[in-house]
């Protein structure tokens, strides 16, 4: 599995560097304009740049999986003596690394452009547990989303024949699944509003409709127990599903 | 000198794919023994080497060697290789046997053209004379 990660990172090395350099250059350009242009415009562009970079790397990462499933490079990957579990895990970890590198560089540049200097002192205002929570939530969000998207891609490929049909199918399934999961999650949160406070591990009841389990409201970290369990179960289901599909059902045309 | 070296004309052997190849390989080896290209007790190339040079399946070559061994023309020493036999009459016997094959099929063909026995002999004498005169 680690070998897979190694090779995938090598393969996308240039892309990552390319995006980072573009962001850095664009940011530097923006900084030179800071004096002459409207502050709002500079801010706006900087934010757009950051978001743009993240979107580009995310799409690039998804395209890799798409090429495996619908293109020729899958012939090399899927004839390796690697289990489906190993393949999907390495793909997710690689994507996480790729996205994180670009996100970090982009945020750094945004910070630099807007604040004029790179200053991490504001981090001291946060508790260690809160920072940890933020990082874990970030990783969780990306891994979960990737697993879901890959699941839709694989199901699309398995269920429907043909490149175009497969991709359209994947997209439709993605919409359906996202809506279904979201709806179920909301239902569960409303039915079982018990939350767990991560600071003191007390159990409260929060009648909030915001079931996002990474919303840290005013420094108090509350996660809805039921929806978290639901999310974890869904994730495990999708992940195992990916592994199973790759091993037993995937047909390369 | 090693038999079946890469530079040999044998390399460009045109096999007739309509006939079993192992038989054709046997013929080549028998012919070479008769003409003296292969001497008694000479070592034949390994199955693998010969197969590679001729670009045929090694199993085919193996069969040729096995058949030749069965006929007593070659013998195999485990671990060392396959060698041409030692029988001093072997070359003569082979020569006669191969000649018989050629003559038999020649006679059959001539007969199908309508020649009778004495006509065949006359034609052969005449042709042999001409070949002798023309060198």
């Amino acid at each position, binding site marked *: 599995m680690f*070998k897979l990660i190694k*090779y995938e990172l*090598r*393969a996308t090395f*240039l892309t990552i560097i390319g995006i980072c350099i573009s962001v850095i250059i664009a940011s530097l350009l923006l900084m030179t304009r800071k004096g002459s242009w409207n502050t709002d415009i500079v801010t706006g562009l900087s934010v757009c740049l950051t978001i743009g970079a993240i979107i580009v790397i995310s799409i690039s990462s998804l395209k890799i999986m798409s090429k495996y499933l619908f293109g*020729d*490079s*899958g*012939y*090399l990957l*899927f*004839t*390796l*003596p*690697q*289990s489906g579990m190993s393949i999907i895990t390495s793909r997710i970890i690689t994507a996480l690394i790729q996205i994180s590198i670009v996100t970090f560089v982009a945020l750094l540049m945004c910070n630099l452009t807007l604040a004029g200097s790179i200053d991490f002192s504001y981090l001291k205002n946060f508790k260690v547990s809160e920072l940890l929570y933020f990082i874990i939530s970030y990783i969780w969000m990306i891994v979960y989303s990737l697993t879901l998207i890959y699941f839709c891609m694989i199901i699309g490929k398995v269920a429907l*024949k043909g490149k175009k049909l497969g991709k359209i199918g994947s997209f439709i399934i993605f919409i359906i699944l996202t809506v279904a999961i979201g709806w179920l999650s909301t239902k569960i949160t409303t039915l079982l509003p018990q939350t767990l406070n991560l600071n003191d591990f007390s159990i409260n009841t929060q009648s909030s409709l915001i079931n996002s389990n990474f919303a840290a409201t005013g420094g108090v970290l509350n996660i809805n127990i039921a929806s978290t369990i639901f999310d974890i179960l869904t994730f495990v289901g999708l992940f195992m599903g990916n592994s199973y599909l790759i*091993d*037993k*059902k*995937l*047909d*390369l045309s | 000198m090693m038999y079946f070296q890469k530079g040999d004309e044998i390399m460009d052997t045109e*096999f*007739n*794919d*309509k*006939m*079993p*190849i*192992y038989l054709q390989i046997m013929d080549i080896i028998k012919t070479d023994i008769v003409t003296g290209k292969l001497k008694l007790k000479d070592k034949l190339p390994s199955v*693998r080497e010969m*197969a*590679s040079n*001729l*670009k*045929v*399946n*090694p*199993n*085919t070559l193996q*069969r040729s060697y096995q058949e030749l061994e069965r006929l007593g023309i070659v013998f195999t020493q485990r671990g060392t290789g396959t060698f041409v036999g030692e029988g001093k009459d072997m070359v003569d016997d082979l020569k006669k046997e191969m000649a018989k094959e050629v003559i038999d099929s020649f006679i059959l063909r001539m007969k199908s053209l309508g020649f009778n026995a004495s006509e065949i002999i006359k034609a052969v004498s005449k042709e042999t004379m001409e070949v002798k005169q023309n060198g």
Partner: protein
Amino acid sequence: MDNILESKKVCKSYLNKKALRGVDLNITPGKIVGLLGPNGSGKTTFLKIAAGILHPSKGEILIDGHIPGVYTKSVVSYLPDNEYLLKWMKVRDAVMYFKDFYADFDEKKANELLIFMDLDENSTVKSLSKGMKEKLKLTLVLSRTAKLYILDEPLGGVDPTAREKILNAIVNNFSKDSSMIITTHLVNDIERIFDDVAFISDGEIVLHGNAEELRRDKKKSIDELYREVFK
């Protein structure tokens, strides 16, 4: 002797067509088998099933006694018909890739084959001509000590000199413990290498036998037989 490949009534159906309609084929160790048929006959489909990247709709296929999966992929060396080499790699990288993932990869043999095929290990995959790519693919596949080699059109789109080298490499790779299954259109060039041949038409095996015996019995070359069967 245990079969390296055992296929019992393997079927593969798609929505609108039946690619394989019950293929029975057994291959014992030490054999080179030719799977011959025109485009669309199902030969690539069958090979992909053996390679583990396609799953049969019905029937059973066993490689070294196992259902296609992680184990069979480790003992099967597959040469697909398409361009599957990663474009960012150099020849050296491709060799290292195979070495990393396949325990049975013989680096020494790979280096010898690269020299034999006139391939420079520092060239990028992108810069290679079609013929050179084929030679590289074959180098990688034959440098493994696999139990079953599956070669899908190894001579396709390659000039005669390259073909010579490829055929040579294939014959030299022969071993009593492993087998090869090869598909090709160019029956003429390669028929002497086959032990057995199987003619596949429309998803079924229509003729199967030992090449030499077929030559003796039918008094035709395999190439002629092929033309006859697939008129």
